[in-house]
């Protein structure tokens, strides 16, 4: 154990130290080659000018290099691969795309993704809004918010274990150690293997994401609610509006922009959800989704890069318009 910790520390120091060494060293080197101090007259001016030409690229160089290698090149290459066969060698035209739309599992994934898109963003936003409004009214609201917000810090895999324990199944008549089946049995029902019930299992997986993301919606909407001018609500109270009217007619319209941002942010997340499905069912019992299907094809039977890339492109096409809208909205709100 001690040896492992030691080697981990060394590895970390090498990694972080390397980055520090580059920035410090490169800038020192520039100062050495074109000194601006200790020289006078034209030489100093020239050297300063040269420094000014080179230094921005020292600063931004690593970022540009990494962005090109890790994002720009892969995007182009994925597009290229989606028109090629499994090893990426022979051009196959649109064969991967026509395969995808004819594949039962792919169509099932699309169907499930649409289901997720219809349920999860709406549920998170609605629950988040309700909780934000309610917690604003009570003295222990901050504590309540912290506790509801907490699952957001938990990994999808950790959350999957937590919920798998809740869905745990034991035969009829046995002691149930899964909370859900215990409740069902207590109510007189018979226990179910929840995650292998086709169609309905999708909803049991969605609950996990809703549990995680409601806190996100709540925090952002809560900040927006606090920005609503008091006078508008007071005016409504004086006019005799009831709490529901205040909520739906006065508050919701004023934070509509934020609601949309929360909704779309969760929508993007849903399109990329992978961990929950992998750990809970790995796509069995008709619970497959696109992101997990893509991962599956990356390694299935040694990996089919053509099909995997095709699914990635389809995810990208689905995410793109929402993402663009979202960034625009964020820029507008941020005032940039």
């Amino acid at each position, binding site marked *: 154990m001690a040896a*492992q910790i030691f080697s*981990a520390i060394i*590895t970390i120091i090498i*990694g*972080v130290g390397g*980055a520090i060494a580059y920035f410090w060293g490169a*800038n020192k080197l520039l100062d050495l080659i074109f000194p601006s101090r200790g020289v006078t007259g034209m030489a100093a001016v020239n050297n300063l000018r040269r420094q*000014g*030409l080179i*230094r*921005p690229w020292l*600063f*931004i160089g690593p*970022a*540009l290099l*990494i*962005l090109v*290698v*890790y*994002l720009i090149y*892969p*995007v182009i290459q*994925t597009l290229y*691969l989606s028109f090629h066969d499994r090893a990426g060698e022979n051009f196959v035209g649109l064969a991967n795309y026509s395969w995808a739309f004819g594949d039962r599992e792919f169509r099932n994934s699309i169907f499930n993704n649409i289901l997720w898109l219809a349920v999860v963003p709406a549920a998170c936003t609605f629950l988040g809004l309700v909780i934000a409004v309610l917690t604003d009214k009570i003295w*222990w*609201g901050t504590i309540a918010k*912290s*506790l509801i917000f*907490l*699952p957001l*810090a*938990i*990994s999808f*895999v950790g959350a999957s274990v937590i919920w*798998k*324990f*809740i869905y745990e199944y034991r035969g009829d008549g046995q*002691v149930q*150690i*899964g*909370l859900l089946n215990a409740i069902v049995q207590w109510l007189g029902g018979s226990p179910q293997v929840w995650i292998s019930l086709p169609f309905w299992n999708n909803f049991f997986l969605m609950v996990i994401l809703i*549990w995680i993301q*409601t806190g996100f919606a709540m*925090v*952002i909407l809560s*900040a927006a609610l606090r920005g609503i001018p008091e006078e508008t609500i007071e005016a409504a109270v004086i006019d005799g509006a009831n*709490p529901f009217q205040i909520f739906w007619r006065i508050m919701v319209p004023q934070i509509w922009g934020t609601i949309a941002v*929360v909704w779309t*942010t969760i929508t993007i997340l849903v399109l*990329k959800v*992978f961990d929950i499905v992998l*750990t809970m069912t790995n796509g069995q019992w008709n619970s497959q989704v696109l*992101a997990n299907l893509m991962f599956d094809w990356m390694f299935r039977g040694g990996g089919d*890069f053509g099909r995997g890339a095709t699914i990635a492109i389809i995810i*990208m096409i689905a*995410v*793109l318009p929402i993402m663009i809208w979202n*960034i625009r909205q*964020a820029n507008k709100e941020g005032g*940039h």
Partner: protein
Amino acid sequence: MATARGKSLLGRFGVHLAVLVFVIIWTIPTLGILVSSLRDKDQIIASGWWNSFSSSTQTEAGRLPAPESQVEKDGKFVIEGNIFGDAPAREVSAFGLRSAAPTQYAVGETADLGDGVTLQVNADGSFVLASPVAFEGTRGQRIYFASSAPPRFTTENYETVLFSEGIGRSFINSLTVTVPATIIPIMIAAFAAYALAWMRFPGRALIIATIIGLLVVPLQMTLIPLLQLYNGVALFFGVPSKTYLGIWLAHTGFGLPFAIYLLRSYMAGLPKELMESARIDGASDFEIFLKIVLPLSFPVLASFAIFQFLWVWNDLLVAMVFLKTDASELVLTAKLNALLGSRGGDWEILTTSAFVTILVPLAVFFSLQRYFVRGLLAGSVKGG
């Protein structure tokens, strides 16, 4: 007026109640694994964790001592002892002789085994097996019994997962991945953001636009080409394709557009006069960056650091693609995923491991909640 006040009192009570219900629903799942991880492993499967404070009843099978331990007493052959042997005694409520009826006899009752053989088991586990003729054979009598054990809480599960299940090792691996994968992108992004905010060079606007454009790229788009690239580099240089350096750079790449976007907009908002007066004093951009901009940008750096740290710590996808699946590089999330497959029903292992993996995020969350919320508000546009 009176009715209105009554209504609002009722309404206020309703608000408290509704929030309480939400809080309970949201905390119970996590509470479940925390409580379970501290329970005795036999008790986890014997009763639900919500019953963990009451005694749990379980049915067990055992074998009485072999006939060689019999003694002759009052003309009878007797085997005496305790069904728990040397193990700590529990309270026995019933016993039986067939697996189909493990609780046929109540404690204290005398069971008739036929041919005059009798068995009596007491609540403390002591038993008397008596027979008019000598017992034969080498194996003892099979016995079933229901016992209830007092609630037992222990940290044994934590010792098991940390030291023999490999979670301890994975914890170190996770740190090895996460710490540099948080610090490296911050450094690279901070320098780039400063250049984009305060330095003048050709192509600056184009670079800013490109970086904002890269925010939209989903992680899935990059995985296959990068996997190919890593394999190619590994083959060409004769080095392993799955290394810590590889995953640091990958996480750096995926975090950079968001980091630069976030840091640049913050740095661009810093007062211009500060930079100009420093420049007049002869400070180079490197010095201005280190001594003025970096300290002033602390809040946004902290927000991004927390966001990136949690993102990397909780990531499974990137770790599964870019790291080896053996003990030397398996991070916590991947280890937990592997345990779900190999130790599917061993809830003492799974709940404890899950709790270990969420421990660090929870600590970060509770200690740095303010920065976390701010990072989150800004992070709603992260592409990765």
